[in-house]
């Protein structure tokens, strides 16, 4: 499709033309009003379905922070979101829309499951887990490069390539779960034979979250932030994202760097897939839809974080809280848990609008 699409990083530049210390206040004002608008609209939606907004928000809050068990749940949802966000920050920096991230998560889970099934009886558990993690990274990275290859050599826009690959990954999962990897006797879409507890990530006693999964997520974010700010690779990716033509004229190998970005993001997404199989709140097997939409949510998170790796940390925590909290809505109130998604979507939409309003209303200054 046309190359006239404004990439996210270009949009960021267009929007950031006006950043000066004196307009910082205006920035904060616009951001806060966007958040308020989003919350207000969510309240309206709640009223429409006959629920009380206060009640619903309180329920979400208590659903995520009400007890230590719930907080642990939130953190287990946080981990895969952190990993996906870390990866997306890289692809967004290069100006790419990696919609295929869901499929990359799934392939990571598939590869991890495969390795674990093959080796679970022949190697000590820690070794199996480690190898599974590497396999997960590899699976996601390959799937990511697939999307990149389609774009670079087939001229297929990465959005549609990624989407198609998402569906293929999903189909493969269904096939595996009902076919070669099916549970002996039963064979249903509830998934493969669950792994024994020795292959679960160890959790704290009393606080059901594994430090490993959260740590991996945070480390990934920090690493990606470091890569983008401190390495030549990161600098070159940013150059590509901002102005592909100038970057090319400077001698930066565009194709290779883009493939690298896809591979890195895919790898991190694949790692998220591994976490979804072995993590604390996992069902410890492979099942269809294992990615649970975390990949797409991560896109929203990174958009909301204005493509910043560090801001993705609190925002993804917030999103994880909303996701977990809104499960309570379905359990206790007859409300659909997608309300969490509504809040998240409204937030990103409001921020997008505010960004647009700001760059249109405030004049850009030039020296």
């Amino acid at each position: 499709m046309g190359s006239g699409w404004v990439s996210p990083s270009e949009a960021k530049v267009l929007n950031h033309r006006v950043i000066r210390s004196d307009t910082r206040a205006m920035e904060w004002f616009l951001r806060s009003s966007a958040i308020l608008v989003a919350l207000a609209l969510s309240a309206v939606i709640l009223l429409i379905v006959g629920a009380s907004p206060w009640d619903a928000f309180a329920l979400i809050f208590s659903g995520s922070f009400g007890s230590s068990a719930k907080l642990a749940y939130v953190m287990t949802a946080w981990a895969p979101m952190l990993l996906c966000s870390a990866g997306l920050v890289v692809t967004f920096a290069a100006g790419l829309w990696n919609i295929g991230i869901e499929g990359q998560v799934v392939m990571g889970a598939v590869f991890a499951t495969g390795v674990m099934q093959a080796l679970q009886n022949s190697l000590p558990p820690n070794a199996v887990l480690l190898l599974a993690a590497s396999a997960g990274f590899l699976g996601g990275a390959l799937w990511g490069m697939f999307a990149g290859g389609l774009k670079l050599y087939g001229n297929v826009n990465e959005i549609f390539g990624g989407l198609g690959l998402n569906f293929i990954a999903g189909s493969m999962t269904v096939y595996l779960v009902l076919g070669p990897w099916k549970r002996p006797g039963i064979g249903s879409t509830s998934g493969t034979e669950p792994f024994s507890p020795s292959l679960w990530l160890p959790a704290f006693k009393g606080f059901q979250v594994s430090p490993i999964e959260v740590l991996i997520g945070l480390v990934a974010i920090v690493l990606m932030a470091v890569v983008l700010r401190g390495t030549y690779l990161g600098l070159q990716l940013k150059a590509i994202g901002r102005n592909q033509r100038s970057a090319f004229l400077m001698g930066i190998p565009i194709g290779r760097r883009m493939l690298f970005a896809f591979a890195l993001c895919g790898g991190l997404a694949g790692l998220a897939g591994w976490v979804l199989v072995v993590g604390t709140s996992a069902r410890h097997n492979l099942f269809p839809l294992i990615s649970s939409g975390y990949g797409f949510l991560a896109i929203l998170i990174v958009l909301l974080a204005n493509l910043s790796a560090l801001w993705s940390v609190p925002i993804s925590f917030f999103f994880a809280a909303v996701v977990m909290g809104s499960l309570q809505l379905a359990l206790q109130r007859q409300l659909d848990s997608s309300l969490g998604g509504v809040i998240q979507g409204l937030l990103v939409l409001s921020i997008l609008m505010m960004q647009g309003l700001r760059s249109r209303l405030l004049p850009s200054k030039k020296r």
Partner: protein
Amino acid sequence: MKVELKDIYKHFGPVPANDGVTLSVESGTLHGLLGENGAGKSTLMKVLSGFLSPDRGKILIDGIPVRFFSPAQAVVLGIGMLHQDPLDFPALTVMDNFLLGDPSRFRLDRQRARSNLLELSAQLDFKLDPNAWVSNLSIGERQQLEIVRLLWMGVSLLILDEPTTAISSQQKDKLFAALHKLTDQKKTILFVSHKLEEVKELCGKVTVLAHGKVTGECKMPCPTEKLVEMMFGQIITVGKRSALPLDNSVLDLSHLTLNDWRLEVKDLSLQIRAGEVIGLAGLEGSGQHLVLKASAGLIRPKAGHIRINHTDMTGRPYHQFLEAGVTYMAAGRLEEGLIAGMTLTEHFALMERHPPFWVNWALAEEIAAQHIQEFKIRGQPTTTVEELSGGNQQRTLLSLLPPHSKILLMEHPTRGLDLESTEYIWEIFLNRAREGTAILFISSELDELLDRSHRILVFFGGRVRVLETPQVNGIRLGESIGGKGFES
């Protein structure tokens, strides 16, 4: 239809593109508008055709002041413009292009339009196939289509913007014949061009623009020297070239044929030696950009060879040219050189030829500060490039050039710079030339071309003439750019 422009003033930024232009075009005449690039011709025509509104000034049609705010409104009043790249729809057919925009009816009557199209074309001796795809037409044919369409829409003043840039001489003859027929029908033609010879051949009266002002008017016949003087002003030449260059051939173009959608540079052979400075002259779109881009490895020649230091580089990718020591600097500062949104420090970091894994930001900032001082860039290492003024962006681009290149290819290196900066920059270039770097640069400043180059390549419609600078003066150069000496 008599059209008058009175005291038109239009500015973009501090320098006015049109500075009080007054011009009067009599009905039924072929009036020429002559001027260099940057003289203000295109701005004036955009004002007249409705694309822009003047900041000050009036437009009168047959003595009555009119105001219009869009090209479509101008057409309604009878003013239509044929653009250098005709504003048509390549993805549609000739017939549909003809029809699009006709306000008369809702349902498309292709039959009626077809007969109108063929009739009008026949009148002007044009041959247009209504079913052809416009993308398959030559530029000349696309022009013909647009002229016919504008006439059908009832245009009485036809503005032609550099129409002969990319058409064959046969098509040019056809066009001129058609224009004469139109004036016989009492239509008025405004012929905008930089080609002296053609304007002399075609028009009855010429107005010359330079630096946004009218520098003179002339009724044909009018001597070329007078026109050149009005276009370029006084030219003082003082030779400031480097000493006689060394002998080895650094860049060797042999029988090079290049083309793009507009024109073709055929069979160009040229040898450039180390330390030589070559100026590429000629007005926009005459082929000089093609040659420069081909020498940088950005476009593949259709035929011929490019050798750098006796190695055949034809068809090799751009990054191999970079490794061979070629440096290319494009004209679009923010489009093809700098990266908006990144700071000066980041740009200097990116230019690192063999970068390590980690960026040494302290070092990069130091380098940036050094270059800022050296090139007198008004900015900080932390300034983002889009915040710089145009002149400072140019300085930045130049400061980013790698210290040792074998061949420097530059498009308009001193555009937008004041005299002092230009002197300073050329000092740097001369030093490089002394060290053996060959320099090819495109410029539209005659004095720069004459002062600095050992040889000047003048481009006109894809053809090239080589002039040795000791034997050329400003008048000759101006004439050459305008097309003299290329007839054959």
